[in-house]
C-alpha cells in the first residue's frame, strides 16, 4: 500500500513532468485534415511510433515516456476492441478515448507510486470533417481545443552560455549579482550550479503563442506543415539531431510521413 501525502503528489508531478520532458508534440488542423509534428531521432524512433489510430475518424498521439505511452495504448486498444464487440466500430469516438484515457491516467496518478508520464493529443473528425481536439495531461486533466494543440514542452532552465552572458544588459547583470549575493549569504557554496545565471524556457507556451499568431482558418496542407515545421524548430529545445517528423493526415486518405532537418532539407518521406 502506498501512503499518499501532498508531498508525494508534488513529487509524482515533478517526476512526470521531467519524464514527459521539454520536447513538443504539436497538432495543426488544415482544410481537409490535420498534421502531427514532433522531434525525430532516426536511431531511437520508428516513424509514427507515437501515434495510434482509434478508428477511421479518430487518432491519438503522445509524447513522453515510450514505455508508459505503450502501456496506455495497450489498455486503450483493449477498450476499443471491447467497444467494437459490444456496440460496433461506429460508436468508438474520440470522446470515448478521452474518457477512457482520462480515467486511466487519473487513477494511476492518484493511486500508484508513479504517474504514467505521457501527454496525449486526441483528434476526432467524424462531424463533417470538423476536427475536435483534446489534450490529456499525465494526471488525467483534459483540455478541449480547436484548430491546433500542443503537448509536452514543460518548463526548463539552462545555464547561459558565455556569449549570452556577455550580451546581458547592465540591469540583468545587476539582477543576477544580487541574486547570487543573496544565495551566498544563505550559505550556498560559490560552485553551486544554481548560482550560475540561467534562462528559463517554456517551449509549450512559446509554441502556443507562435501558432496563435500563425494559424489561419482553411489553411492548405502545405501551409499547415510549414507552420508546424517553424513551430517545432523555433520552440523545441536545441538538440543534436535537429530533425522533426510530421505526419499529415488528409481525411479519407493514407497518412503521409515527412521528415525535415533544420537546414530546410527534406530528409525522407513515406506513406
Amino acid at each position, binding site marked *: 500500500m502506498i501512503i499518499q501525502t501532498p508531498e508525494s503528489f508534488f513529487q509524482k508531478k515533478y517526476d512526470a513532468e521531467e519524464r514527459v520532458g521539454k520536447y513538443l508534440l504539436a497538432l495543426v488542423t488544415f482544410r481537409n485534415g490535420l498534421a502531427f509534428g514532433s522531434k525525430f531521432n532516426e536511431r531511437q524512433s520508428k516513424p509514427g511510433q507515437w501515434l495510434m489510430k482509434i478508428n477511421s475518424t479518430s487518432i491519438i498521439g503522445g509524447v513522453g515516456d515510450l514505455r508508459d505511452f505503450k502501456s496506455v495504448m495497450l489498455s486503450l486498444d483493449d477498450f476499443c476492441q471491447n467497444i467494437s*464487440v459490444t456496440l*460496433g466500430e461506429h*460508436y468508438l469516438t474520440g470522446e470515448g478515448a478521452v474518457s477512457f484515457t482520462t480515467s486511466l491516467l487519473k487513477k494511476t496518478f492518484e493511486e500508484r507510486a508513479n504517474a504514467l508520464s505521457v501527454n496525449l493529443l486526441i483528434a476526432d473528425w467524424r462531424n463533417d470533417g470538423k476536427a475536435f481536439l483534446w489534450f490529456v495531461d499525465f494526471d488525467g486533466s483534459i483540455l478541449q481545443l480547436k484548430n491546433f494543440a500542443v503537448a509536452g514542452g514543460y518548463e526548463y532552465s539552462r545555464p547561459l552560455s558565455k556569449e549570452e552572458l556577455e550580451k546581458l544588459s547592465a540591469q540583468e547583470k545587476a539582477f543576477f549579482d544580487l541574486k547570487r549575493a543573496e544565495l551566498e549569504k544563505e550559505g550556498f557554496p560559490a560552485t553551486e550550479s544554481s548560482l550560475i545565471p540561467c534562462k528559463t524556457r517554456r517551449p509549450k507556451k512559446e509554441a502556443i503563442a507562435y501558432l496563435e499568431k500563425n494559424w489561419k482558418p482553411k489553411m492548405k496542407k502545405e501551409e499547415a506543415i510549414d507552420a508546424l515545421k517553424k513551430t517545432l524548430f523555433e520552440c523545441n529545445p536545441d538538440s543534436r539531431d535537429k530533425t522533426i517528423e510530421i505526419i499529415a493526415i488528409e481525411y479519407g486518405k493514407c497518412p503521409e510521413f515527412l521528415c525535415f532537418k533544420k537546414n530546410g532539407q527534406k530528409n525522407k518521406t513515406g506513406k
Partner: protein
Amino acid sequence: MDIIQKIMQKIAEAKTSGNAILNLGNEEKLRQIKESRIHGTTILALKCENGVIMAADRRCSAGGKIFSDRAIKIEEIGSLSAIGGAGFVSDCQWLVKALKNEFLPNFEKFLEIEEIFVDGLANLIDFIMGRVFLLTWPILAGWDPHQGAGRIFLFEPGGAKFEFDNYIACGSGGDEATSVLDSKWSCDCTPQKGIQIAIEALLLAAKKDLHTSDPFIHPPTVKIISPDGISTLPTKNAFGIAWEKAMKEQARKGDKEGVGAFVADSFLKELRKNQAKEKNKNSKKPA
C-alpha cells in the same frame, strides 16, 4: 471503473430465470429452452418502404391460465428501435430494464454519443445474452441511420444473433404468423400494407394458438418505425383493421353462426360510413 467492467459486474449480479436453471441437468435445461421458444405470445417484425413494422398480441399467460390480455410486449428503446420477445417475461423485462436504465445511458455518457441505434443495440444484446442465460427470444427492429435501412434481428437464449432481410415472427403463434407473412409480404410493401399484413398474421396466430390474444377483441400493439421516429398505431385503428379482416374472413367462409356473423354487416356498414365521413372532412379542408 471502466464501462465494460461495470457492465460485466451488472451481468454477474443478474438474477434471471435463465441463470436459475443453470444448475439443472442438461435434459431439463434443454427442455426449458425449447419451451421458452414457444412460450405463449406472437411477436413479429417486417420491413416496409422506408421503415420497419413491429406488432405483438396482448396476452400474458402461464401454462393454461391467462394472466392478462392487456400486456404491452413491445418496448421502445431510443428514438429509432423497439424490442419485444417471447419466453420468460421476467428475463425479457430484465433485459429491457438493464438496457434502458443501465447499459445504454452508461455507454452514451461514457462515449458521449447521442444515441445507440439498432446496430449497436443488436451487438450489445448479443454480448449480454452470450453472458447471461436469459430464457427469452427477443426480436429487435429499428431504423439504422448508418445504413439508411430498417433492420430486424432475432436472438436466441445462447446468445446467437440472426439478422433477417424481410420479416420474422416468434412465439407460440410464430409459425402461423410466418405463414401469412410468407404469402402476403412483398418487397414493395408500403407501411399501410405492412400494418394490414401484420394484423392479419396476428389474427391467424390467435385463431390457432391458445396463448395469443384475439386482435379484434384485444387490439394488438403495432409500432411503425421510420427514419423520423417511432409511431404507435392508435388502438381504434388497430381494432378497426382487425375487425374488418375478421369479418371479411367470416363472410368469405359463409359463417352464419359465429358472433361475428351477427355484427359483421352492421359493423362493416358503420366502418365504411365513418371512413366516408373522414374522407369528406379531409376534402373540405382548405389546402
